[in-house]
């Protein structure tokens, strides 16, 4: 299995990965929602025209703006 690091915003729908790092203040802002380092995350939907993404984390769906998702780095399973 080859692992690839990329921003959560660059994942393709259906891809899974594990959160590697979350930038700065965002970490605190999304901690309570269950998004954190070490968690598995699945890209569930991506809106066109730089719209928000929807990720599945622990069976919760969470929608994030594209720039927020830019600050989350994941290791994608291939």
């Amino acid at each position, binding site marked *: 299995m080859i692992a690839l690091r990329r921003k959560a915003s660059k994942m393709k729908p259906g891809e899974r990965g594990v959160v590697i790092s979350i930038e700065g203040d965002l970490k*605190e802002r999304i901690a*309570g929602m269950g998004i954190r380092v070490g968690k598995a995350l699945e890209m569930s939907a991506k809106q066109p025209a730089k719209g928000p993404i929807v990720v599945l984390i622990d069976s919760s*769906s969470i929608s994030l703006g594209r720039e927020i998702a830019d600050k989350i780095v994941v290791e994608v399973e291939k």
Partner: protein
Amino acid sequence: MKILLMGHPNVGKSGLFNRLTGAKITESNYPGTTVDYTQGHMKLKGKDVEVVDVPGTFSLKPKDKAEEVAVKMFKESKGSVTVCVLDASKVERGLYLTLEIIEKGYPVIVALNMWDIAKDKEIDINVRKLEAILGVPVVPTVAISGEGIKEMVSRIDETSPVKIEKVIKRSGGTESKNPTIDERWDIIDRISNKVIEYGKYEHTLKDAIAELTVKPYTGIPVAIAVLYGFWAFFGAFAGFFTDGFFVKLFDVHWLPWLQDNFPGEGGWVYYILVGDPAADNCFEAFGMLTSGLFVAIGVVLPAIIAFYLFLIILEDSGYLPRLAVLIDTLLHKIGLHGFAIVPLILSLGCNVPAVTATRTLETKKQRFMMMVLLSVFIPCGAQLGIMIEVIPDYVGFIMFYLFLGFFVWGYILNKIIPGKSPEILLDVPPYQRPMLRNVGRKLWLRTKSFFTVAIPFVLLGVVIVNLLYLGGVLDWLANIFEPVLMGWFGVPKETVGPLIAAFLRKDLAVAQLSAIEMTTYQLITAVVLVSLYFPCVATFAMIIKEGKESGWKGVVRIFFGSMIVLIVIVFLWGGLLHLLWILLGVG
């Protein structure tokens, strides 16, 4: 003694609150249903205790106004018994807030709510073990059915503050008593490993629908269909009752009967209560008992019921957050974000609760923009009901012009108002089947509040306008404003009456407009003006109240800010329509 209900948004705190206190506050399936706290009372071992339903928050670091209200309430109630309400199917992330609360030294009891859903998902939680590690009572509950509520109540007095060091130790770790974010999660991981077992998760039909309605290529067509369905249902339902029943009742029976039997024709009492003795329908008569009652009960009531029936089903099913995700791309372009769709849709029912619902937006800039935009451009359900009745052929165009204004002016305001426009960060809840009991109760509550608030205002509005007319004030004002009305907007000076009525009720104003002689194009402009111009009194009062949250400076800022924006928009956007008619050669 005070009991706080704290927890994430949309875990059923309000449902639990209703169970505990016998109150009837609104429950819906989207985060941010409760944006202000509600106080109630319950009996505990014969004593009266206060219970507070606090808006949902993900942590003690607030990220929007509603969370700020929650955290402020929490801090002000130091030492109160806190019921941490968790979604039993998402215990881990719920424990984050629970640990934060325990760290603050509050006595805690944990309610694992939506226990039934966790069972369906084959999530096995060892409640005794969790209780032993946390050192606080843990009770599985199902707020909607009442399961576990009695046990929870009976164990409230077992609570006492717990030292976080002990919790950490029992979880098998060595973190300090002020854990960092990552350490807090490590603690939670160890706890969850000990007490939770996840069964094999099966992808259900519900999950498939949930996914299809949020993916763009399937979700956007569905969203258009749902919104169109909403509009079609609204028109059909309201039309069925108004045209099929109330028009006949009022025009054929009630009006002639009043005209024949009401004493004192020609006198002012007759004029105020019955209106024009020669009128053959209730729009033109314009008496309190004729037009007033007809507008309120015959037209607006069916419209309100139709609107809320559909809205409540959207609210309870969990569709609204998905709509928010789909429309975010568009709304983010004007500095708002997708969740602004919730106040926007609420606003189509009534602007007043919509103003409060703007609290789920993160920044002052977003809230100010949304409050102004919705009070200026979004007609309420009462006004829509009347519009469909009196100008059915032009409602489409008027709505288009108003929504276009919403986006154009949103774009402009976004450029000139300082402040941040954060992106969407939204928890999308699973779908749920709306429960008849909840739908019925919410419909009843909203209809009731329409009856008690709107009907007196409609009737009062008729009386005031009639008195102004009898006193010659209307004619006087009409002559003063004629240059502006005729010259700038191209509408007859008689529209001054409806514009005054619009202060009180916009539905009434539109009804009045329909009785004034003018061209179709003038009528369209006039209806647009009624919508744009000054928000109704109730909405305005609510906007001022929201400003008050940040002191008298906030009130001044919001009052002058919104007045300036309002006046500019009314003149430019209203005048533009007149210009359009002139260019088309019909103005």
